[in-house]
């Protein structure tokens, strides 16, 4: 089984399919990182640098905003990513309809999402670095 899965080429995170120990080299099409901390199975690992405030992208769409600078190889989860939707606790900061990629104004990249799993199964480069 491949250790990680990247769904869209626009993604800046990969999903770990097995638990990753620190120091593990993982790679895919156009990226290659060494994990800097443990990543549990099913959790995400950064495959590029993500600056605080930048969108975290999975399935080719934003899944939230980085709340800290995230180094490649880092565990990406609730400690360093924040949702921008339904945040009544931050009323006014993220007005409804303002979320990145949330509206028709942003042309949907059908191919990226629709082919998610096709791309996923093509993204086998990680296996070759076992």
């Amino acid at each position, binding site marked *: 089984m491949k250790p990680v899965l990247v769904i869209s080429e626009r993604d800046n995170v990969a999903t770990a399919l097995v638990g990753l120990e620190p120091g593990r080299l993982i790679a895919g099409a156009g990226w290659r990182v060494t994990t800097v901390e443990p990543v549990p199975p*099913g959790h995400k690992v950064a495959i590029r640098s993500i600056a605080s405030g930048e969108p975290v992208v999975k399935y080719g*769409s934003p899944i939230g905003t980085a709340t800290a600078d995230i180094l490649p190889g880092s565990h990406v989860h609730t400690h360093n990513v924040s949702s921008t939707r*339904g945040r009544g606790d*931050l009323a006014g900061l993220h007005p*409804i309809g303002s979320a990145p990629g949330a*509206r*028709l104004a942003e042309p*949907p990249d059908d191919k990226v*999402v629709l082919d998610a799993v*096709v791309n996923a199964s093509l993204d086998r480069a990680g296996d070759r670095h076992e």
Partner: protein
Amino acid sequence: MSEAERAGFWGFLRPDGRAGARNHLLVVPTVVCASVVCERIAAVVPNAVALPHQAGCGQLGPDMHTTHETLAAYCEHPNVGAVLVVALGCEQVIGQRLLERARQAGKPAEMLSIQSEGGTLRTIARGTHLAAQFASRLAAEPRSWCDVSHLVLSLKCGGSDYTSGLASNPVLGRVADRLVALGGSTVLGEVAEIMGAEHLLAARASRPEAAAQLIRIVDRVEAEAMALGLDIRGTQPSPGNIRGGLTTIEEKSLGATHKGGERSALEDVVPYAGRIERPGLTVMDTPGLDVESVTGMVGGGAQVVVFTTGLGTPTGNPVAPVIKITANARTARLMSDNLDLDVSGVVDDSETLDAAADRLFAQVLDVASGTLTAAEVLGHREFAIYRRNPTI
């Protein structure tokens, strides 16, 4: 022979043109006060199901309407062959109207009222007699071949983890697209779990009205969370989702909407338990809570539910079979009692998405033809009507 000529199931053709996957006798309480009586009647009659619920009185306008329409939708449901309505006698839901809706749909139906019959025991006695007569009638009715275009498939996920978005939802999405291509219908609920992916579904709308309605209901759910001054992250994703690796509602939604397929156009947006009338993909305005969501989508006319899960969940429904599918190998082992299909091979590369979708599609047709699901065998018949307002 083309796939369209072959695909179908052995079902019960109804006078209203719909087709049932089951032929249940429905014993329906108008109000919570009649729920126990209904359960006792259903317990002694084969193939009878009760619809115990907590509503029916003390409800404000919109909630009262939802309760009434949901109960009426079950009285008309294609998986229901006959209906026994049990009223208390002083409640808000009007039993006579449920009786009329069942009869208008062409179903044999009767009604009792606990206050008129003279209490629990007399109502159970008379109700059981009526139910037994209905049941022997229903048992004699044969199934007939129904084209697959009669099928309305409810698309559901719950107890999601990373395998849901990566494998089981895309497998279900392929089945959904195939059914729609053959003229069938699919329904997706859980509006909170569309939040963050609504742009993708809206872009697939066949009509601008459907896109606008979708955006409107997603905005409303988001506004409701905002109005409480709360962070939706307390519940979406759930604590279990977060342990499983899902970080935000956007991530959960993007994985969840794969259930709706990739090609099917969004044809319609309907209210909770509202009738699904257009072939193709419909979005129903349901909450994310599993049982309320499944209750609503079945009310809309879905005869079969496919429920993807990562962590495992037992949820069933009183009238519709619920097929459980997981792509988490550990869950498939640990909760085999509750699961119908293991597609974990998609995650470990031992099965392709298309091969898994072939198996699921065949299972949907088998179940529509009478094969029992794990939830049915175990007697899981959860039912809960969506409510927004306090009881008065």
